[in-house]
């Protein structure tokens, strides 16, 4: 089986739309929690709860800077998801590589016909 459904794996961590939203925001760079609260439009305790889940699976790292806690994305923890999708991605890539050949052919023919649309 491709995936194990435990509560503390990356799959579970990103199953929640709000948590995906947090990861999206953090993909843009390190952020203090207030920024996340603002971006998500949720109350801080809720955001903190989601951040805790993400930290448990290592998807998010945190460090203190002065009085602020800064959160950042740790893409490496999401690798199991990437690996899972990779086989599917590869079959489409191969399919589209063949489509490249068909298109090169069509372009050539069209140009041969005088370039008409």
């Amino acid at each position, binding site marked *: 089986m*491709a*995936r194990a459904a435990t509560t503390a794996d990356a799959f579970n961590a990103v*199953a929640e*739309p709000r948590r995906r939203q947090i990861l999206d925001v953090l993909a843009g760079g390190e952020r203090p929690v207030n920024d996340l609260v603002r971006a998500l439009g949720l109350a801080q305790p809720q955001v903190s709860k989601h951040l805790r889940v993400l930290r448990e699976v290592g998807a998010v790292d945190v460090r203190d800077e002065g009085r602020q806690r800064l959160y950042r994305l740790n893409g490496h923890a999401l690798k199991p*998801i990437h690996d*899972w*999708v*990779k*086989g*599917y*991605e*590869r*079959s*489409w*890539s*191969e*399919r*589209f*590589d*063949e*489509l*490249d*050949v*068909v*298109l*090169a052919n*069509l*372009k050539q023919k*069209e140009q041969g016909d005088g370039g008409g*649309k």
Partner: protein
Amino acid sequence: MAVASSGTAKVTLPTDEQILITREFDAPKHLVYRAYTTPELVKRWWSGKCGEMTSCEIDLRVGGTWRYVMVATGGFEVAFHGEYREIVPNERVITTEVYEGVPEEEAPEEDVVNIVTFTEADGRTTLRLLVQCPSREIRDTIIDSGMEVGMQEGMDLLEEVAISLQ
């Protein structure tokens, strides 16, 4: 044949029920659309490197049906069919998709819907295929099937290597 490849397909999971496949092509969109919707042309690319397409039926009108059959390298047959829900030539095609390998009693009540859009910039076309599934389980099954294909290819490759060593 050497082709200036536009890179690999990118797969993302925008929501729990969706798969988004994105790929750029070095061709204007009317050609990508043609290659995507003309049986003789689909036959030349759809099976990728996984096998041979033995049948490709396309009735390109809203309410019309499509059916693709492929014999995979391992000798087994896979077939898909569906219905056209929306067609905007050179812009967008929306179809349902049913995998015929699923026994009817296990088939989901709601169909998987494929939304394909073609956008052109500077003579290049970005194809976006959004696979909208009725549930996360079905979405996950579809992705797992890709993994099986990948594994099958791995096995084929292994076999080639083994033969070359003889």
